[in-house]
């Protein structure tokens, strides 16, 4: 089991009802894309919200990531909408 820390921001945070969680991932979850698929498998809000993949961005250890970015035990993985600052 690989433990990672997940952060959610903006409407993802609101619609998931969760800002931050630690999850233990089963074997075979090696990338951000794998993680998204696994989270959707939880059903409920996760299934509904995380299917909007065109509107979801990610960061791994505070660097912008893509679905292909590898993830490792202890990583901080953030999921959020496209940025609207400035």
């Amino acid at each position, binding site marked *: 089991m690989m433990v990672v820390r997940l*952060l959610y*921001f*903006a*409407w993802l945070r609101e619609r998931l009802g969760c800002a931050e969680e630690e999850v233990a991932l089963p074997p075979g979850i090696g990338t951000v894309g794998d993680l998204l698929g696994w989270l959707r498998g939880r059903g409920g809000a996760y299934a509904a919200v995380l299917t909007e993949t065109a509107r979801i961005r990610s*960061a791994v250890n*505070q660097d*912008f990531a893509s679905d292909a970015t590898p993830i490792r035990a202890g990583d901080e993985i*953030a999921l*959020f*909408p*496209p*940025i*609207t*600052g*400035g």
Partner: protein
Amino acid sequence: MAFIRVGPEDFDLGTEMAALRAAAGDIGAVASFIGIVRGGAAAPMTAMTLEHYPGMTERAIASMAAEAETRFALSACRVIHRTGRIPLGGQIVLVMTACGHRQAALDATAYLIDWLKVAAPFWKKEHLADGTDIWVEARNADDSAAARWQTP
């Protein structure tokens, strides 16, 4: 080294100018940009809330400021981005750059505000006059504005 601050406190342009001058040494040009919460036309707004990713936001801004300092030979640079709830007319963001010549200062300021829009993790929620809250959608125009600074 650029001065960067991310947080709820407001700022005063004159005070920031004095701090920039103190850090800058011999310069010929200072350019600045301030973004302000605007009422808007379609759906009247009363306030805005800025959410950010503590840690990553500061790192992302530090990285783009360091890039700007090198690229435009800046003598000093300040970026302040507010978070939390900001009323209509409130200040959101300050970019201020100092260097030898006017074009570099103006370009560096445009560069930083363009990149802040697309590469610093902030999210804006609008509080509308009718009581509803809306997360602002990212604009493709912002990606285009930042892309013009990409060197081939």
